[in-house]
């Protein structure tokens, strides 16, 4: 994007100003995303637990609840345990935060809207997200308490183990797309025929072959685990270990840890969107909306191109937040796994599955006949649409039922005379 805009502004220090502006925009986005994610988490948790969540601060839906939380955390007393290693205690959250923030450098939000269009973008993002582990270790060790240390070590073992199947699942669409450049995953090739353009939903890589389809779900599972989200959140384990590895952290230090967590949640969701779900495309237009409005790379009308890119950015952020919402949905629905179950899931299930997917996608373009390769995405897309419609119909059916009728056994066994639901057959 620097090359395009430097035609407009010709000062020799323009690239430096652009770099500074990009960094500020990225960190602003990361913080706003964290604020929104915290609010969404509390609302989602509330709704799933059949209550309302925050409703008081900032209107009927509690929009400003996180702001109030932040202000409270800022004025809290900064407590450092006496047996803590002071320097490492202070340093830990910053390493986690830096590791999470660096990943946004290579994440494209739209057509050429990226801080640094790296050729190895996805590799770089995986690499810097893996530096968060050291922050977790320092947090656990620096607290000076055995339980924090155990939580930190378990957490580090889990995050490090899940990086392996995560990276293998990332390689699967990289093999299909022949590039590690994240912008190229969603960039529309102007010379390709219209029905094959990357912006149409059936050309997204998730439908490309059965291996990328499975890779999406495996990647999402591994990403959830590596962000230490439930059902893999034994290290935090809110209901069990007080707060796991960050027990001794309060106030703003705790907020840093959680900003890092929500930041990396969005980063891995962003990678999933770009690799599998078509990035910033809506899915129904034959070309990138910015190219449609303003010509290829803004050739005909740069202002309409920018407007199209704004739409791209909004769509990308919406997709990213949808995946973050799915992570939260899973968190408040499923029970927690024990640490040995967590490690077993990684080493005995997800890792062999990823290896099989990697081999499968490598063989797909070599062994499978061309006709199957060409029409499989269409079939997969149709099957997924059908499945989605069936799920939607079932959900509407469930929502229409009066409460209690879905679970006939539970309440009817109590013999309550006022029970209105289904009776056992």
């Amino acid at each position: 994007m620097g090359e395009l805009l430097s035609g407009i502004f010709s000062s020799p220090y323009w690239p430096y100003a652009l770099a500074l502006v990009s960094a500020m925009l990225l960190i602003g986005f990361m913080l706003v995303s964290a604020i929104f994610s915290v609010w969404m988490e509390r609302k989602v948790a509330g709704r799933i637990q059949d209550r309302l969540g925050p409703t008081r601060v900032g209107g009927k839906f509690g929009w400003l609840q996180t702001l109030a939380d932040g202000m409270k955390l800022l004025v809290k007393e900064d407590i450092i345990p006496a047996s803590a290693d002071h320097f490492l205690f202070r340093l830990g959250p910053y390493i986690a935060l830096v590791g999470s923030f660096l990943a946004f450098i290579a994440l494209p939000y739209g057509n050429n809207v990226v801080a640094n269009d790296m050729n190895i973008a996805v590799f770089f993002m995986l690499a810097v997200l893996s530096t968060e582990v050291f922050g977790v270790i320092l947090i656990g060790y620096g607290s000076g308490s055995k339980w924090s240390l155990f939580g930190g070590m378990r957490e580090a073992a889990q995050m490090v183990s899940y990086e392996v199947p995560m990276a293998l699942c990332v390689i699967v669409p990289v093999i299909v797309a022949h590039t590690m450049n994240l912008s190229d995953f969603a960039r529309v090739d102007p010379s390709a025929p219209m029905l094959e353009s990357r912006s149409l939903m059936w050309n997204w890589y998730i439908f490309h072959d059965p291996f990328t389809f499975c890779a999406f779900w495996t990647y999402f599972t591994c990403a959830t685990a590596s962000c230490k989200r439930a059902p893999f959140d034994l290290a935090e384990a809110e209901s069990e270990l007080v707060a796991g590895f960050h027990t001794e952290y309060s106030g703003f230090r705790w907020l840093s840890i959680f900003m890092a967590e929500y930041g990396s949640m969005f980063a891995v969701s962003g990678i999933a969107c770009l690799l599998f779900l078509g990035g910033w495309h809506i899915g129904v237009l034959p070309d990138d909306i910015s190219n449609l409005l303003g010509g290829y790379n803004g050739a005909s009308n740069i202002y309409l191109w920018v407007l199209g890119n704004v739409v791209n950015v909004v769509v990308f952020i919406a997709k990213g937040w949808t995946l973050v919402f799915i992570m939260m949905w899973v968190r408040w629905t499923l029970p927690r796994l024990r640490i040995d179950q967590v490690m077993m899931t990684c080493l005995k299930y997800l890792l062999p599955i990823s290896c099989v997917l990697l081999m499968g996608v490598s063989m797909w373009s070599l062994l499978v006949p061309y006709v199957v390769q060409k029409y499989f995405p269409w079939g997969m897309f149709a099957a997924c649409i059908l499945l989605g419609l069936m799920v939607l119909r079932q959900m509407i059916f469930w929502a229409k039922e009066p409460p209690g009728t879905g679970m006939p056994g539970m309440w009817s066994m109590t013999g309550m005379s006022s029970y209105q639901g289904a009776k056992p057959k």
Partner: protein
Amino acid sequence: MDSVAQPILFWIIATATATCAIAVVVSQNIVRAATWLLFSLGGTAGIFFLLGADLVGATQILVYVGGTLILLVFGVMLTAQGPFITMKTGAAEWVISAVVGLLFFGVLAVTAFSVGSVAAKNDGRLEPPGRTVKEYAPKLNLVEASKSASSSAILGQGFLGVGVGPAHLNAKGKPERANYLLPFEIVSVHLLVVLIGAAYLARAKRRRRGTA
């Protein structure tokens, strides 16, 4: 433009890396030494990015910071409990090591400066010329938009067995490019051997309660 940023960035990153490396040596607490090592490795990755070696820099972060360093810290946590976290070295050893170290550094620095001032052949740009796909990997077929700055693609092609890099004449007088398939396969087998060996060495042993 880049000639303004590159010296500033170099001096910042180099000073940070060197300071952290010296802190590793000086620090008595093993966990703090590991933390300073983290910053040294991160600084080295920054130097790699500054030199235009993106893939090497990202691999450095992924393997060293995200792998080897975690391994070292796990080792520290498993073995260095309490009295082992700070082990002091005697003063005499410090003096001898410091003297030898400074002499060694003097020799290396003199050698470095006598190489001659080889300015970058590209007037200070970050990307040296010649690392273009056409010149170094003529058989590479890249996605349209990423034909520029594709050193990672060239490296990948080299690991797959296709010749990359500047062409030179082989023994028969024909132009040939180097490929890196054999070392790649050897390293793969090596890693497998290391995996099995380390897992075997560090396995939990059953205690034998034999007769004394």
